[in-house]
C-alpha cells in the first residue's frame, strides 16, 4: 500500500533583505554580525550541494552555533541566485507549522547566517544546477547538536515555493 501523497503548502519567496530576514539570522553587511558558538571551534569548508527542485520535506536546525554561508566565488561567471528556506527558532518540532516556513532569494553576492535554532534546509540554486558555498559551522553542530524533522510525517504537508517574478 502506498502512502498518500503529501499536501503541498505553497509559499511565496521574497528577496533577501536584512530587515525581512532578521527573525532568522543576519544578511552580512558593513556592521559586525556576531557568530555565537557554544561548543568548540568553527570549521570552514567548500560545500557543493546537488540540484534540488522537489518540495521541501525535511528541515533541520542546530542548537550550538550560528552558521554562516557565503556563495563560493566563481571567476568569470555571474553571481548565482539561491533560495534560502527557514522557519523561526521558536517553533518546536512537535508543533511545527509548515505555514511558518519562509523562503528568501539571495542574489548570489550575499553572505548570511542562520541563528542558533533557526530551522533551515541547504540553500538551493534557482536554475536546477549544483550550488557551491563556503560553509562556516560549529565543529560539533552536525554530529551532536542537530534536530531534523520530516514535515510529511509530522504534518502531512511538504512545502513548495513560488519565486518572485
Amino acid at each position, binding site marked *: 500500500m502506498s502512502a498518500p501523497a503529501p499536501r503541498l503548502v505553497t509559499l511565496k519567496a521574497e528577496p533577501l533583505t536584512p530587515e525581512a530576514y532578521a527573525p532568522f539570522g543576519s544578511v552580512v553587511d558593513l556592521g559586525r554580525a556576531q557568530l555565537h558558538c557554544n561548543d568548540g571551534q568553527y570549521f*570552514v*569548508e567548500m560545500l*557543493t550541494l546537488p540540484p534540488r527542485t522537489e518540495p521541501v520535506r525535511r528541515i533541520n536546525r542546530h542548537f550550538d552555533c550560528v552558521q*554562516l554561508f557565503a556563495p563560493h*566565488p566563481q571567476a568569470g561567471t555571474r553571481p548565482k541566485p539561491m533560495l534560502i528556506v527557514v522557519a523561526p527558532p521558536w517553533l518546536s518540532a512537535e508543533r511545527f507549522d509548515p505555514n511558518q516556513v519562509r523562503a528568501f532569494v539571495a542574489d548570489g553576492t550575499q553572505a548570511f547566517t542562520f541563528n542558533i535554532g533557526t530551522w533551515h534546509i541547504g540553500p538551493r540554486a534557482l536554475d536546477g544546477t549544483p550550488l557551491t558555498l563556503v560553509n562556516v559551522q560549529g565543529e560539533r553542530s552536525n554530529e551532536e547538536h542537530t534536530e531534523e524533522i520530516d514535515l510529511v510525517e509530522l504534518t502531512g504537508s511538504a512545502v513548495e515555493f513560488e519565486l518572485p517574478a
Partner: protein
Amino acid sequence: MSALQDTVIRVKAEPLTAEAYAPFGIVVAAPRHRLQCEPGQYTARLHQLEPVGDRFVRINRHFDHEQLFVPLTGGPLLLVVAPKELSGEGFDPGQVRAFVNDGSLAWTYGVGVWHFAPRAIDGQAAVLNVQGSRYLAHTEIIAMEPAVAVEL
C-alpha cells in the same frame, strides 16, 4: 623626498595556490578546516577593499584568531603576507610575499601571519571578513623599513 624614502623592496606577485600559500594559511577547499578563535568571538562583516597602491608599509598580524575571507563581488585581489616566524623587531621586508587571487578563492590568514588587508587589483571589490571581535587587543602592527612595492 630623500633617497632613503625612495628605496623599496620589490616583490613579484605569484598566483595564489594552496601549495605556495601553505605557510601563511589555507585556500578553502572541500575538506573541513578547523578555524581557531577565542571562543564565541568570531564576527562576520563586509569589507570594501582599497586599490593596490604603490607602497606597502604598515603590516599587521593577529594572535587571537585565524582570519577568513571570501570574495563576494569584483575581480582579482592582491594578498600581501609575511611568515609568522618573523618578529616585529628586526622585521625583514625581504621575506614579504604577494599572491594574486583571481577572485575565485576563499582563503585565511593563519594565527600570527603578517598581512595587509587584501587589495582590489581592478580598484573595487568586496569580501566577507570573518574575524575575532577583540582583534584590536591582539594585534601587532609595524611600519616596514624599507617599504615594499608589489609587481603584478
